């Protein structure tokens, strides 16, 4: 394992217990930082708007990303399209802190993901289950987030993916050593990673929840289900009072088992983002990239 890869996994460890917020302007980035975000995701349009606008969705303008890098001291992440290694090269060139190879953007390659081992900059990737997570890790991802369904404000898919991921881990842990080879075959991943999950009882990298978090209760739900932190995309800046909601979600992630506190945090937050139910979605972003 290269020294840089180790450092990249360790940066994700520093983000644990935190909330990563989608922002589209330096002003929003500052609001996010003041509210207690542990990192921001710089993008031109938040997922709810990408969904509404339709068309091809690409990496953000580097100038816009730079203006956000200048606005805050916390790490700045940005998205490239699945398989678009040139967008990734550009993001590395502007010294982004983390690249999200993301299903939220239109995929650039319907077969291959970016070979992330060729980069020094860290990558986070989405996954719906253990197999997908380990495939991304073997390609060089140093952080995973469960996919959920971005831009919906509907938590059901985030819950489904986190439960599936954890069930997959529990299964691998419970297998006999001589059964791990077959499990690697079934999961379509390298044996060494399956062995590591078997021995350590967890993913080899930090795992956040994403895709559909809209309330402090949603965030705490994902933490109680085993997430190590939370991405909030459209949920904050599509809501009535972004500042207050952002701060409340941050506190709910820290004290995710304290129902009394979360009750207080959830009171008087104003309008949550208007959600779209799973059944009403035409485009399932989570289906992009397997």
């Amino acid at each position, binding site marked *: 394992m290269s*020294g*840089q890869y*180790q*450092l*990249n996994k*360790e*940066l994700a*460890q*520093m*983000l*644990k*217990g*935190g909330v990563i917020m989608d922002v589209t302007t330096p002003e929003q980035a500052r609001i996010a*930082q*003041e*509210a*207690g*975000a*542990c*990192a921001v995701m710089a993008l031109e349009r938040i997922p709810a708007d990408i969904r509404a606008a339709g068309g091809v969705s690409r990496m953000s303008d580097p100038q816009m990303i730079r203006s956000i*890098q200048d606005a805050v*001291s*916390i*790490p*700045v992440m940005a998205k490239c399209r699945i398989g678009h290694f040139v967008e990734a090269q550009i993001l*590395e060139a502007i*010294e*982004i*802190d*983390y690249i999200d190879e993301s299903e939220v953007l239109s995929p650039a390659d319907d077969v291959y993901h970016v070979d992330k081992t060729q980069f*020094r*900059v*860290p990558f986070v990737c989405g996954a719906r289950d253990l197999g997908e997570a380990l495939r991304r890790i073997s390609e060089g991802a140093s952080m995973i987030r469960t996919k959920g369904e971005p831009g919906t404000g509907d938590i059901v898919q985030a819950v489904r993916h986190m439960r599936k991921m954890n069930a997959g881990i529990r299964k691998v842990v419970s297998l006999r050593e001589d059964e791990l080879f077959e499990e690697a075959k079934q999961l379509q991943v390298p044996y060494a990673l399956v062995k590591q999950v078997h021995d350590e009882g967890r993913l080899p990298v930090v795992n956040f929840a994403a895709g559909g978090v809209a309330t402090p209760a949603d965030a705490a739900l994902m933490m109680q289900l085993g997430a190590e932190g939370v991405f909030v995309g459209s949920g904050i800046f599509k809501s009535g009072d972004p500042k207050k909601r952002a*701060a409340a979600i*941050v*506190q709910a992630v*820290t*004290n995710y088992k*304290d129902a009394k*506190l979360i009750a207080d945090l959830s009171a008087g937050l104003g309008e949550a983002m208007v959600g779209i139910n799973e059944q009403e979605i035409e485009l399932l972003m989570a289906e992009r990239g397997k």
Partner: protein
Amino acid sequence: MRIGVLALQGDFAEHISKLTSLGIDAFEIRKLSDISNRFDGLVLPGGESTVMKKLLHALGLFNPLKNLISDGLPVLATCAGMILLAKSLEDGEAPCFGTMDITVKRNAYGRQLGSFRCVDKFNGIPTEMPFIRAPYVKKAGKSVDVLSVHDNRIVAVRQQNQLAAAFHPELTADNTVYNTFIEMITK
């Protein structure tokens, strides 16, 4: 010996497993009621200092912890933790606890691509040092002992009961920094 680890955000779990492996009773501090019983030492972990500062105030932990530190409770602070202790920050932002007479430059080595690992001396002992989007000490007051200098920059300091490192001893198998901290508690 009981050591409380500030567990608002960051790599507090790594500190706790390290302390546990050294046979120490370590517990998480997430809210005010967590510090109602007496404890012998405090750890301020790595993570994002802006997040921790915000939550310290929001959860009513700021004043009680600041008083404990000022009254001599031994503290180990790593990376973001060092920023929390610093009396002043080079970027002009308001300090958090401000109990240690140092000026700290945040993200001093640049963005993630500037993160690195090295072995250098801590209090004279070669020690593994991972620096992750790390700060360093730009200026240390007269009452501050410099324990590590890497590449001409001050990266570990001690002022009486406060021990601070710009790197992450919690991410290595090396116990040098912890041994110093535990000595501060027991002596």
